[in-house]
Structure formats: C-alpha cells, structure tokens
C-alpha cells in the first residue's frame, strides 16, 4: 500500500545543525523539527510516500515500530494541518 505525499511549494526549508527549519511562505511562520522529525521530513521528500518513509525510519531507529509510527503520524498530521505537506 502506498500513501503519496509532497512537500508544499509554499515551503522553504533549510538543514541547520542537522535539524530542519521550515518556513511557510503564506503565513510567514517558521517551524523547527527535532532530529527525528528532520530525518522523517528528509525521507518524505526523498520517497514521496508515507509508508516507504516509515519503513526506512523503522530500519534506522531502534525503537518499537508501533511507537515510531504513531509519533511520525502525529507529526505528519501537524505538517498537513499547517499546509507544509500535501
């Protein structure tokens, strides 16, 4: 199963000290992602698919898959809500 996802063209972002700073151009609001969120963002950008990104996260981070997926989906919900991904 796949779940396509795209970073909004209204977003400018930059990797800074290994973490990602996002700017939503319409709202002018800046967001900072933590290290795990930053990695998830990079994988979303690379894979353009939520399930593929989650599978790679599970390979990289030695944590319970259920917890990882729950946390990533929570972040994804926030990213969608703020119009940073679609």
């Amino acid at each position, binding site marked *: 199963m796949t779940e396509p996802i795209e970073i909004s063209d209204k977003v400018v972002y*930059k990797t800074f000290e290994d973490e990602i*700073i996002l*700017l939503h*151009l319409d709202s002018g609001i*800046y967001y900072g992602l933590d290290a795990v969120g930053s990695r998830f963002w990079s994988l979303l950008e690379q894979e353009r698919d939520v399930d593929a990104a989650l599978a790679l996260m599970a390979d990289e981070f030695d944590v319970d898959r259920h917890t990882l997926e729950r946390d990533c989906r929570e972040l994804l919900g926030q990213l969608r809500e703020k119009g940073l991904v679609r």
Partner: protein
Amino acid sequence: MPDYALHGLRVRTSASLPGVAEEPFSGDPDCVIHFAPPPPALATGDDRWFRIRLDEAEATFDREGKEVWLRGDFAAATTHLLGQVIGFVLRLRGTVSLHAACVALGGRAVAIAGPSSAGKSTLAAAFAVRGDVVLSDNITALREEGGTFLALPGPYRFLLGDDAATAIFGDAARFPSIITTAEKRVIAPPPPPRSPLPLGAVFILDRSAEPLSEPVVAQFDRKEALIALLHNSYGSVFFTPAMRAADLELLARVALSVPVFDLLLPKDLAALPRAMEAISLYSGS
C-alpha cells in the same frame, strides 16, 4: 537634493528629512528617494518594480533598490522611509536587517531586537545617555564581510513614548512628536562619529507573562537563535519567497557566528540600568 548616510547606504532625497542629520557625499548615491508619484511609465504588474502600500503612503521600488518613489502624506512618507522603505531597499540590495536597536559595546555591535514598543529605543537612548555610541534605534542592517557581519549605522535619533522620554531625558514635552505604531517623541541629538562594527551579540526583547523585578537573560541554542532572528528580520512581511529564502540562509550564518540571547525585560523603567548591565555582561563587554 540633500544627502544622508542610512544603514551603510548613500541616500539622496528630493526633500529634507526632518530630524535626520544631513551627511553630504561626493559621487553617485546608492539610492535616490523621490517624494513624488512614480512616473506613469512604471506600469503596475511589471516585475521590474515593486509597489508596497503603507499607511497613508505608497512606495514604488525598482528591483535593484536604486530608486524609490514615495507618494502620500509627507510626514507619513518620511516615517515609512526611515522604517519599512529603507528596510526593503536594503533587502533588494542583498543586505539583511533586523528589527533591532544597536549599540557599540567594547568595540562590537550589540543588537537589541524585538517588535514595536518592546523597548528597543528606550534601551538605545539609555545607552546613549550613559555615553555609549548608538548605531541605530530601530533597524540593524548587517553586511556580510569576510565571514563576519558588520552592523551599519542608521539615522541618529530615538523614538520614545512619553514615559521613556521623561525617564531618560527629564521632560518629554520639549521634543516633537510623530505617529508611528503609537505616538512617539523624536529625540535627535547631534550624532557622534560612528562607523560599521562587527556584530558581537543579539538580544531578543521579550515580556514576561509574570511581573518581573529583574531582567532575565538566557542564551538560545542555535536553532532557537535562528528562528528568533528570522522572526525579527526587518520588513519580511513584504518579502518575496526568494527574499525570505535568502534571509533563511543569511541569518543561519548569523546564528552560527554570534550568541543570541532571550532578554525578559521588566515593565518598570526603573529596571533599565539593570537591563543595560545584563546586556553588557552577557555580550562580554
């Protein structure tokens, strides 16, 4: 036409700016300001020109920040010129600026940033009265040079509310007033000699939800510092996506090169000397 040195730019204007000392220069100006409607040939929708609507005025800029036409009420237009308009000219010319006062301490520039009415001018004026050289009271323009950032001197004047003007200068009523975001007194003493100085530290002014008797200072980590700098990037509300992206790159380099502090300021003006001490102490000067 009078000449001015504003934030490192040689600016020629079609009319004198009240309360700003003229600084004649030889050669061509970096930017010419016309207090006049733009020539009709500057059609709207042409991407060589930017047009910004301001309260009681409108500014039209060429894309390189070399020429500006300001139409509307003259008092409003001059206020905007020394604020959003010069900020946008700086941005068009590739210079980032912070919504910040700036004072020279120990040979370095210390920027004191924050939104309107946060206390920037009040602190700047208090430093000036103490004998420190103030580079700017509202906009700190930063020129990147050889891996460091130079803070550039702005107009030498202080815009203060009546309470602050009275607390620092004894009597607010003897100074002319203008309306910006609020009614402010314009205090324009003769400027001391000033030159660009390397940026040494940035303080972001903040008000505590709880009443405070003492100022509280905490250093931001670098990521927090970058976000705080971005939020205090001057005039960014008018920026194009490309300008905002450029700011993100530039301010990231600022956040890596100087410490950025959160400064919680007590409301009480009696705490000003302690806030100044804290700024001197944490900026290492």
